[in-house]
């Protein structure tokens, strides 16, 4: 099964997220990630949904989404030129002084931000596409990940 990126414009109304997520669970569709926020029009929100599906299921996902009254537009961004970003915040174990230096070095080299430095941990923040985030996580993993959070992908089509 491949991953597909859908950009879905929805009414910015109470309960819309539940309608969309309920649709996926009721019909057995797989969501890899879902991010939602306001658009330039405060009455409209944009959901970026990464779906795991084959072509036939993807077709149904799009049609079923379109069928929801609160869904205004479904755009399939798969294969398009995208500006796609994720955000990661990752808290690394750093009680050891030597490790502290290496971690900060990794952040500097990769262009990630050091968001917080504590006695026992250092927290790194990074925005970028999926590959960039994955690479950073892999670089930091050997030092001991205490906690990590990643947003779902948000994306727009590039001009």
């Amino acid at each position, binding site marked *: 099964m491949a991953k597909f990126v859908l950009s879905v414009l*929805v*009414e910015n109304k*109470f*309960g819309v997220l*539940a*309608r969309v997520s*309920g*649709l996926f669970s*009721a019909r057995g569709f797989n969501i890899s990630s879902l991010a939602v926020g306001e658009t330039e029009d405060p009455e409209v929100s944009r959901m970026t949904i990464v779906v795991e599906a084959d072509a*036939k299921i993807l*077709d*149904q996902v799009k*049609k*079923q989404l*379109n*069928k*929801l*009254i*609160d*869904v*205004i*537009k479904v755009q399939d961004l798969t294969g398009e030129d995208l500006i796609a970003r994720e955000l990661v915040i990752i808290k690394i174990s750093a009680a050891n002084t030597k490790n502290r230096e290496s971690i900060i070095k990794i952040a500097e080299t990769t262009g990630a931000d050091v968001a917080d430095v504590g006695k026992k941990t250092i927290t790194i923040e990074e925005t970028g596409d999926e590959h960039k985030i994955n690479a950073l996580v892999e670089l930091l993993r050997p030092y001991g990940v205490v906690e990590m959070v990643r947003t779902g992908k948000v994306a727009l089509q590039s001009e």
Partner: protein
Amino acid sequence: MSTMKGAEILVKSLLKENVEHVFGYPGGVVIPLLDQLHRESKIRFILTRHEQGAAHAADGYARATGRVGVCIATSGPGATNLVTGIATAYMDSIPMVAITGQVKSTLIGNDAFQEADIVGITRSITKHNYLVRNVEDLARTVKEAFYIASTGRPGPVLIDLPVDVQFATAEFKYPASVDIKGYKPTYKGHIKQIEKIAEVIKKSKRPVLYVGGGVILSGASEELSKLAHKTEIPVTMTMMGLGAFPGNDPLSLGMLGMHGTAYANHAVQSADLLIAVGARFDDRVTGRLDTFAPNATVVHIDIDPSSVSKNVEVHIPVVGDAKDVLRELTRLAEKPDVEAWHQKIKEWKKELPLGYKDSGELKPQYIIEQIQDVTKDKDVIICTEVGQNQMWSTQFYKFLKPRTWISSGGLGTMGFGLPAAIGAQLGKPESIVFDIAGDGSIQMNIQEMATAVIERLPVKIMILNNGYLGMVRQWQELFYERRYAFTVLAEDVHNYCPDFVKLAESYGARGIRVTKKDDVRNAVKEAVKTEGPVIVEFMISREENVFPMVPAGESISNMLHGLA
């Protein structure tokens, strides 16, 4: 500008939608609304004896008339009792507006007395639903609800109305039109696609029209008939499509699928062109998918894009209203060379007709034939419950007109028939309305006898009593080595429970029991003559089965024939 209370705004809005009948049941948080309805003489409120009865009655009303059915229930258990009725309407695309009371806005989420998150509960069984938080939004919400319920692919819409919103006041302005950004149904089919269909029709040798409930919802029976007769393409119907095309027309193949006619199934399996109209390739129709209509070019005409290529790969899809598309298609289509095809179908019809063994016992199939024969000069609506009673009705009653067949298809809801018959009778007072029932399913909403008696709705309840949950028993007989696990409602004919004749009488209705074949016609005539509701209890042969039958999950080529 004067203001009015939410309850009054709702009732005024119902009047704007030309609502004349509302089915419902009272409760704490709908008192303000019902108080307002009570004062409105143009709307008749039908007090059912259970909220489920109200939902099915609104549904039956909608199916019989084509109008939007309306039901009302209170919060909590009242609302959850509507759920089966709403799901039934949703699966069969029936236009309905369900209005539920809700606890005070400030109490929502507090596990208040009789609180249930009915908007959450019904999200996946409604076309859309609303919680009205502000009285200013109420009129627009009602307008949208009726619009959404009745347009595109119809379906139920629920409005949840907190009790404080019923008291709050606002100006009453009913919107003239609706504009919903995310809801613009497509009615007009793409002409290029329709031209393609005309092309494949011309070249086809073994075409079949496979039509469903969408043709009835769209009011496209006449257009369908014109197309079929111009092209001489035989027509098979889904259960929901019965009545869309006259069952006695030489081009009719009757119903297809699990309990369809052998000739309909053989025709579909041999077809080189299958034209689906307002049907959705349900599993009860297709059987095993990868063996369904293996040689056919598949055309699918449907108003709901999500139905297209959902189960079966479609070669020529057309999204649009059946009426519009069929009209265009009839204009363009030419009659293909189908003489040999008709010959083949004639052979199948001769070799494998529908039938039953006339053993001298009281046979359900015979009863259904007699119901039709005795009333053949009258306008009749047949409602059913679910199970063998329903399948025998599809096979042995020849439906001639749309909206004369009312039965729960997609959800298969036992207990649907009696309240649906009540709704249908109210919507069509001149028609003779039957509920063909089993002794199992009739008991699921038997309390609605009181509604029928008190509201003077003379429905004719024909119970085919075999003392079993017959359809499940049939599966147990055929596939579970006759282990009748929990399907025995009566051990023997002397222990039938309840006595339906006495039960009818206790409600103030008439009860008739028939044990002999010779008495069937007279009993039906008596029932029709009786002014009020009647129960006729037919003590049928107990282990009669519905044949032909395609075992679940098998190819529709593999039919079991009980008579062979």
